[in-house]
């Protein structure tokens, strides 16, 4: 595995840091910073009992990260409580998604995992009430362009992001996990029906373990932006590691994926987690998802694209094909969001009309 970037080698085996000199630590921390995994690296080294072997200068950086991450976690918990208060009267469980869910539910995946936005899932029919309640408590929409508003409200799976007027934190209110215009439509009613309350947090809930994995997989493998690709793959690795130990989890996962039309992203998750991070997946589960994969020619191509885009977004990890690979996946991500004609109209609007309006305003 010497061909892998240093950060990934350390994520696979933290004891690899024992061999690092000053230049090695420099590279490791830069890759971790670029991948938004510096706080996770700290958790990993601490759990492995390696923190005291770290030389003083990189150790200081890790301690700065600890302080920053603790402040971040405290602010995020406060923000979740405020959202809970804003939505208190609506009689809805507050279903948290992604980073906020991992942190509030105390999952492994939440330790050292920073997140800038808080994502929640509500029924589509209740969106107007939820939006009004958030506005009453100080969150305001961030996209004022009429076209952007229509883009979100008509086609997307979420409201335009809302930002708190005073605290500046953002919230994404989802009613589904994929856009209305995407070719597959995981049924949000099924996701909400399987949601689980968080122990000790009366109002808060997360998706079920299988659905959390599937949402993380679809978020990573159907999206066009890979700037946090490795971070998202680490999320999957940690979710699979923790839930995989629970009875029944692995057996149910492939069937649940098919039920939600998410067999393909699960296939990719179970391919690249073991390949890059050494995640242990039972052979029977690997066999069960083979039929959800692409044809061999496409798989060959996807290996080359994801094999690059899932590395840290750092100059030291790039080769000549890294930029084309990211661009190809960007196009693919948009393709998976909208049918071709609508996508063409959307890109035309963003390229010419939005730009024109902005330059008129400026």
């Amino acid at each position: 595995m010497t061909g892998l970037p240093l950060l990934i080698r350390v994520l696979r085996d933290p004891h690899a840091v024992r061999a690092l000199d000053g230049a090695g630590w420099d590279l490791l921390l830069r890759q971790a910073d670029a991948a938004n995994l510096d706080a996770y690296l700290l958790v990993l080294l601490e759990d492995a009992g390696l923190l005291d072997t770290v030389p003083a200068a990189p150790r200081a950086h890790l301690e700065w990260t600890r302080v920053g991450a603790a402040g971040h976690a405290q602010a995020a918990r406060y923000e979740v409580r405020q959202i809970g208060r804003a939505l208190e009267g609506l009689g809805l469980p507050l279903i948290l998604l992604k980073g906020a869910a991992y942190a509030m539910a105390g999952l492994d995946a939440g330790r050292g995992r920073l997140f800038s936005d808080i994502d929640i899932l509500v029924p589509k029919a209740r969106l107007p009430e939820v939006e009004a309640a958030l506005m009453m408590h100080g969150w305001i929409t961030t996209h004022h362009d009429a076209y952007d508003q229509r883009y979100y409200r008509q086609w997307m799976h979420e409201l335009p992001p809302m930002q708190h007027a005073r605290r500046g934190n953002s919230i994404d209110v989802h009613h589904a996990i994929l856009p209305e215009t995407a070719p597959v439509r995981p049924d949000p009613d099924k996701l909400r029906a399987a949601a689980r309350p968080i122990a000790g947090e009366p109002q808060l809930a997360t998706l079920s373990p299988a659905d959390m994995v599937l949402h993380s997989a679809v978020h990573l493998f159907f999206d066009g932006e890979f700037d946090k690709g490795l971070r998202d793959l680490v999320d999957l690795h940690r979710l699979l590691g923790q839930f995989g130990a629970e009875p029944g989890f692995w057996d149910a996962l492939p069937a649940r994926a098919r039920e939600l039309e998410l067999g393909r992203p699960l296939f990719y998750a179970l391919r690249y987690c073991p390949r890059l991070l050494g995640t242990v997946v039972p052979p029977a589960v690997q066999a069960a998802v083979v039929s959800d994969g692409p044809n061999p020619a496409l798989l060959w191509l996807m290996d080359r694209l994801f094999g690059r885009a899932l590395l840290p977004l750092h100059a030291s990890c790039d080769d000549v094909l890294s930029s084309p690979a990211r661009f190809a996946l960007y196009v693919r991500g948009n393709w998976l969001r909208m049918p071709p004609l609508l996508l063409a109209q959307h890109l035309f609007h963003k390229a010419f009309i939005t730009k024109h309006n902005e330059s008129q305003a400026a």
Partner: protein
Amino acid sequence: MLTVGSLSRAELTARLSGDGLVLRTGPFTNRIRSDVSPLIDGLALMYADYPVEPAGGFVDFHLELQRSGGLRRWHRSQVHFTYDGTTPFQPLPLGQAYPMLEWTMNWCVSHRAHGYLIIHAAVLEKHGRAIILPAPPGSGKSTLTAALLGHGWRLLSDELTLVHLGDGVLVPLPRPVSLKNASIDIIRAFRPDAVLSRPVEETTKGTIAHLKAPQDSIARALEPAKPACIVFPRWEAGAAIALDPLPKARAFMQVADNCFNYQVLGARGFTALGALIDASDTYTFRYSSLPDAMALFERLAQGPA
């Protein structure tokens, strides 16, 4: 010890355009890469006495400030800042490259170095007593700092007061003092010996020139200081000099308002700031004449009689 001043211009340029110049400022190392000549001019003049570390080891901050490519290379050329491949700021006109280096070096510290409570304040020391001057804009903090440096005060910092979270000492980060607009001529008149960088006009802060930090302050960069006073200065034309005690609770809130990372640090920030306020006499200070201010600060340096 290798210093910037001991490198020839050709060597300095070669390092900056190659793997980078590793510049030590206080507790931090900065790897700087640049091909912009106004930046190299400013750096060569202002940082001549600073240590240069060998390349290829661990470095705290990786800064790159490069000239625009394409048509912009020739027409209205700009300087682009990247932090290890990311671009946190818009480019600026090429002539502002050296002030931009100073701002981006400040940004690296204030956004990352959370081992310190970081106050937007100048801090100087004399006779073992450090005085912190927090900086609401227009307070004349840098002018006062530049003047005091000609009167035997040691510069810990002009912009970033670093309070160590572990033991509460003030950790020096002596770097050039940023002077704006009228202050530049005031200091030229008050301190004819001062070494100033070439003034840069039309920045977002007006005209900017930097004053070189005293050689002795740079040499003592690893020697921390103990806080003695926190003084909120205010320059007012024609005002009589006045040093008034500021209640500690108000001082606490006003210093917190001037911190970069008070929120980030949470309870640790509260504890560190509380200890700093407890250890310091807190004042507001109004003045119109620099010589009067020098005399008063000398009394503060002597400590309680």
